[in-house]
């Protein structure tokens, strides 16, 4: 078998989309579980419905957007410190 020619399941973009949709379904199911499981709030405000999901999503988007901005300021060529 030539490993180079082998097609893997994830090589098909349709399967990647399936995984992506599955993740959404899983996330939404977890949110709905809030109605079943009584979450004990650690702080004052995290008992609100969907707090952790929304916070996680917003935090990560904000993180990436801020990091993109940061790149404008700090990115230099790879050999920046190498030149004498």
């Amino acid at each position, binding site marked *: 078998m030539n490993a180079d020619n082998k097609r893997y399941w994830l090589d098909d973009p349709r399967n990647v989309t399936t995984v992506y949709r599955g993740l959404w379904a899983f996330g939404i199911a977890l949110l709905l579980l809030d109605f079943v499981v009584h979450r004990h709030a650690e702080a004052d405000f995290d008992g609100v419905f969907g707090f952790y999901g929304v916070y*996680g999503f917003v935090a990560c988007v904000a993180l*990436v957007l801020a990091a993109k901005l940061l790149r404008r300021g*700090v990115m230099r060529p790879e050999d920046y410190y190498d030149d004498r």
Partner: protein
Amino acid sequence: MTIAELPAGLTLIAAGLAAPLVPRAWRGALLLAAPLAAFAQLLALPAAAHVAVEAFGVTLQLVRADKLSLAFGYIFVIAAFLNALYGWHVRDGAEQPAAMVYAGAAVAAVFAGDLLTLFVFWELTAVASAVVVWAQGSKRAYGAGLRYLVIQLASGMLLAAGAVLRYAETGSLAFDLVGLGTPGGALLLLAFGIKCAFPLLHNWLQDAYPEASATGTVVLSAFTTKLGIYALARGFAGTEMLIWIGTLMTAFPIFYAVIENDLRRVLAYSVNNQLGFMVVGIGLGTDLGVNGAVAHAFADILFKALLFMSMGAVLLRTGTVKGTDLGGLYKSMPWTAGFCIVGAASISAFPLFSGFVTKSMIMFSAAQQGYAWEWLVLLFASAGVFHHAGIKIPFFAFFAHDAGIRCREAPGHMLAAMALAALLCIGIGTFPAALYALLPRAVDYTPYTASHVLSQLQLLVFSALAFSVLMRTGIYPPEKRSVNLDFDWTYRRVGARLAAGTAAALAMFNAAAGAGLRAGARRVGGWLQAVHGADGVLARTWSTGGMALWVALMLAGYLLVMYL
């Protein structure tokens, strides 16, 4: 003093020093056996053992065993074993022996009962670990190792100065709770802060660790920073300032981690981020907080070693760990990919993995103590660590677009080391009671409640969804070949420029002053030649009469002075 009471660290140090002397074929076995022997020593160590010797007129406590030092002792010895197994193929060079000396010094340091003993082993970790960096052999590693060593030795000097001040303040060198109340305490905090990579004191970590070899970086990730955490937990538990320092540490490195291309440097930033959680726990000073810090240090050594091991295997097989060059490696290295994902799940605190049962102690304690804003930042950092370490590392190395690299799977001993680390990560995550039993204070905490599992899963799954959405919409910043300026810019660029400028100015001054001096010297030489030279005034032969006249004049002068 029985054999069992000998410091276990010395066993590792002795093995490391002996390794270059034994035949090459035996070297690996010796380095593998040493941690096992040291572990047996720790198990045999009597509870609350104290071994002291008299030296320099003070009592040095070589071994002070309590639960805090034992917890760090166990995990350091386990890490030493994992490193020896992972580096089994490295038989030549100074790296593996130095790594064992480094591990031994770290073990000895956590059992040190006084500041002087701590200082000695503190410095030994600095020197031995610098050798590990240099062993990589490249010019970059040499430079990074040099910068690393200077900063580590600075930490040692602060520790020494702090110890001296403590001795003056308290009349004792004992290393117990120090606190920030005195100048000695402040110096010690600064010394420990460098090792813990406090903000602005942190860049040695991201600078040096990724420059070591595939095996060397794994070694480095375990000891220095966790030794700092140990010292902080011993000396500064409950120092409120640490809560804010730690909170800052969890947050700022993750922005850099997102844009960094070198995947081992990404992990170095996440080391910094995880240390922040531990520093917060120590700052809280509650039973839960300090226990959480120790437990998280224990878990972190394992999952960070696992992540660095998987990246080391990639580096060994493909020659690079740049996100731009990798992708699709799961096809060639499925086992390594699997172990990497276990490490990623552990650092991200997925239920059933180690981070879930350790990091949550710190967060829960912060919330209980009413640090709501800090808690929110920690939660942000938790989502962020999943984002950059949990997803980015495995994704860009093993998945993403297929870079077309086809290589062999990692060698057997590397896979064995990764498997062992992965097993321990899952073991801690599923049977937390075993780890909790080792913690320094009484544990009253249940990690597995439906509420905690659900909220954590929600946080993580929606973080993953954010990543997926950003990837699929193309908003996610692509990996780029680059260097990102961090605080090390101040000394690698500004400092270097200042030094170069100073050197140039000094050279100019030298040239000018040299010319002046030379002219002056010529003048003095000419005068000396004129006076003392072959034809000089003082070298001439004088007549006896002339000499007698001079002597008479001198005596007359003498007489005059006597009467005056």
